[in-house]
């Protein structure tokens, strides 16, 4: 599904040039659950953003579903992203002014899904995330765990093939974190590809494969056999 060749990302400010990714070669297959680990500043999030089509690499190739996308314009990337990729963030990133229902509905609006269809799908997703009773609440009225479940509902609402999760349990206590991981695992079992950045070894244990990054390089790739 995702294929990178000699991916390089360099950040430049006026005086400093930082190489965030250096010759990263990766292959992520459909249906896989991959964890990316590594110390702070090693380039995990940068890699995730490039895979998520939020950012373009400085050099190298990026293949997504067989298309070469590293030179895509913002518009092309957005179009590809909104149909194929869902995001889950450490800090949930829900819009405070929108209710739970409206937050989840948002991707469908940009996909121009009809009102009735939206309602059906949002309710379904909320049921699934066990948060339907909170549909009319605003994010601030929810606990962290609940907020993250809303975020996951939003990530899956458009039935994406890929979910990118950036430390999804980072702001949660262990019980809530566990629940979120269960949801992600379940999604993966239903066929969604998941790429997750994490610091937590126990979260990483849920994945099929762990990619270790260090200073922008891939150091190891451990295939984990599910027991």
């Amino acid at each position, binding site marked *: 599904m995702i294929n990178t060749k000699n991916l390089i990302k360099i950040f430049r400010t006026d005086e400093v040039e930082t190489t965030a990714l250096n010759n990263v070669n990766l292959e992520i297959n459909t249906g896989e659950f991959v964890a990316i680990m590594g110390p702070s500043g090693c380039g995990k999030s940068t890699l995730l*953003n490039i895979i998520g089509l*939020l950012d373009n690499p400085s050099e190298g190739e990026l293949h997504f579903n067989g298309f070469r996308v590293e030179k895509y314009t913002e518009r092309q990337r957005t179009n590809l992203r*909104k149909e194929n990729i869902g995001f889950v963030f450490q800090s949930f*990133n829900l819009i*405070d*002014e929108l209710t739970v229902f409206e937050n989840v509905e948002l991707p469908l609006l*940009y996909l121009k899904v009809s009102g009735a269809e939206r309602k059906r799908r949002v309710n379904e997703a909320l049921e699934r995330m066990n948060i339907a009773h909170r549909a009319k609440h605003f994010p601030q009225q929810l606990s962290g765990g609940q907020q993250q479940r809303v975020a996951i509902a*939003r990530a899956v609402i*458009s039935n994406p093939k890929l979910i990118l999760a950036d430390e999804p349990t980072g702001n949660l206590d262990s019980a809530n974190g566990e629940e979120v991981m269960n949801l992600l695992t379940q999604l993966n079992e239903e066929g969604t590809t998941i790429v997750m950045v994490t610091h937590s070894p126990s979260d990483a244990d849920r994945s099929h494969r762990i990619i270790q990054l260090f200073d922008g390089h891939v150091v190891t790739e451990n295939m984990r056999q599910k027991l």
Partner: protein
Amino acid sequence: MFKNFFINLFRNFSRNKFYTSINVVGLSVGLMCTILILLFVQDELSYDKYNVNHERIIRLGSDFTLGGNRDRIATSPLPFGPTFAEEFPEVEQFVRFHASGKQQFKYGEKEFYEERISYVDSSVFKVFSFPLLKGNPEKALTQAYSIVLNETLAKKYFNDEDPMGKVLLVGENVPYTVSGVMKDLPLNSHFKFNAFYSMKSLENIRGAEEFNSLQPVSFWSFSSYTFLLLKENTENEAILEKFPAYYEKYMRKLGDQLGVSYKLIIQHLGDIHLRSQLQWDAPTGNIKYIYILSAIAIFILLIASINYMNMATARSSKRAKEVGIRKVVGAQRENIIRQFMMESISLTVFALIIALICVELLLPVFNQLVGKDLVLSVVGTPEVILFNIILAVILGIFSGSYPALYLSSIQPISILKGIKGNANSNGFLRKLLVISQFTVSAIMISGTIIVASQFLYMNNMDVGFDKSNVVVAVMRDSVLRTKIDAFKIELKKNPNIKAVATSSSLIGFDGSKSVHLFESKEGMEEYALNFNVIDFDYIDLMEMDILEGRSFSQQIASDTVNAFIVNQAAVIKFNWGENALGKKLQLGVDVDGVDEGGEVQLGEVIGVMRDFNYQPLKDLIEPMNLILSENPNHRRVLHVKINSENRKETLSYIEKVWNQFCPNMSFDYFFLEDRMRENYQDEERLTWIFSIFSLISILIASMGLFGLSSFMAEQRTKELGVRKVLGASVGKLVYLLTGEFIRLIIIANILAIPISYWALNIWLSDFPYHISIGIWVFIVTIIVSLVIGLFTVAWQSYRAATSDPIKAIKYE
């Protein structure tokens, strides 16, 4: 999508009540001012356009130069109408208006003085759209001594009676038969007539021979307003091109003898109200005020929309997260732009609704201020409403454009990295916006100061005579004028009456001009000189200064025959220098074979008086000649100087004596001072308008500054906390926060100085007597801006500077 948008919009507004209300109030007030100004401007531009034929109607005016003295007047000779119709095939109809002064109307017990009446040709109802409610437009004014009243007058005298065929006694009991009732002329008409006498009446009064005379002298008396209805597709140039031949035929001979050069002025009816600057014209508007007001409207809107931009971009860090999320989940840039544009358009449309309500409520006050009767209605002024909706949308797009473009450019990745939109990244633009707001405000402040000072200056300027406590009454009754000496003696018996005098015309208003001959090195030369015929008591009553020679004296009998007193301007004009006394002067000229009509009086200068402003201060003091006469026909205007105490009793005493001497016509008076103040009504209005609108613009700018400063204080909470922990004093922190704004306000003021100086000088140059723009004006402006600015910013800054540093550091 729309529902989602509006829900989001509403929540966004209600969660940011402070910023939203600053924006809504600013935009509403801005739009309100614009709508009011627009209504005013639209009304001014609509003058006389209610006439169906207005595009084909022109007015003939006269531009003539005599002895270096040029006059441009709105009137033309009486024979122009019929002879133009005859000589120029382009002319379809002509109408002449020959104004009659104030006259007393009597019907039964009812007796009032009426103004704004004119003798007019019977074609008036064909040329102009003055609808008749009663009477036949073809015939209403064909008979001598017929009169057409407007609705108001008809009601006043006849109530529910049918006025048609009834007889009104006019002036010295001349019977006029009512032959029609017309609708009151619209307010947006430069004509202000309440009634029309038939032109035939004037013909009867003057005698048909004199009235219809095509003698050369008739072409050199400019007594009527001549309007021509031109045939379709006729250009004014056609008339102008052929005019020299006409001039040759009717006017040249006498003109050359008099030494006058003459030019025809042609004005479109629609241009008279705003673009005519002729003497003897109806009080008109001024296109300059239209420009000034439109500029003010644009300024105020600019300030309000800058507020919006400023606050929207300042708050961008708060919205950046939302933009980022929307983009991550699939929003394209145009979705975001559309969202922000719709937000600002919704806000301006909402502000427009509030503005329209405010306009509806404030219109009566505004009408009073501008002296109009403006109405706002979807039916009556659909174009104003439509224009405003368009304006609100454009304003929304304009205000929303920068925030929309800026925010939509935020990369989603930045929110993932946890970077908040950097409020300082557009600090330069924000500074620029604040500077432009305060530049505009500073221009408005200095404009207000200058306009108000000029108004006060004109009102309080020493006009060269004492205008206070002078009661003026025009003696229209010829019998009263013959009894004037006895009348004066009777009046003076009252101890509260200090002096009584008469003159032929009212100082400062209806002066007369006549050809004079003055002594020069080359012999006697011609000049059209203003003159006023006065009695012995006039100069004393008005407290005018005689600088050289003497005043008129009752002891010297020849003073009524051959003595003149001229003003300083005349001495300068005639190059008399130090030797003005004894110089020869002649009123009127003898022209061979032509009866000039007026009397000729040769005499010499016995005194020079200090210049006084006998005309409104909007004109330069022109040369002037005072002539003494005991001829009752010249003693038309009664002046009574009274004590400032017991005014009421004194006035009723004058009225009592008046009624004894003049039982036919009631006492109709005014105070000279009041009449002179009316001259500056325009300036008084402008002063008010300027003050009010500049106050509003400053208010809106300050609101914006207040919002911006609270935002900046909030932004810098952490910085302030750190500084405080490191030992900064509250004073230092307040300075840190306010210093930047103060600098911006000072820069704005400096930028405003040349602009204000330039614009105000243009305005002032219209006045021959005007104040000069001193540096103090700009100093005061800077101080006012700074005080307002500081007051606005200081509170927020103080609050931020005194807040608990621990909280501040924990922030984020």
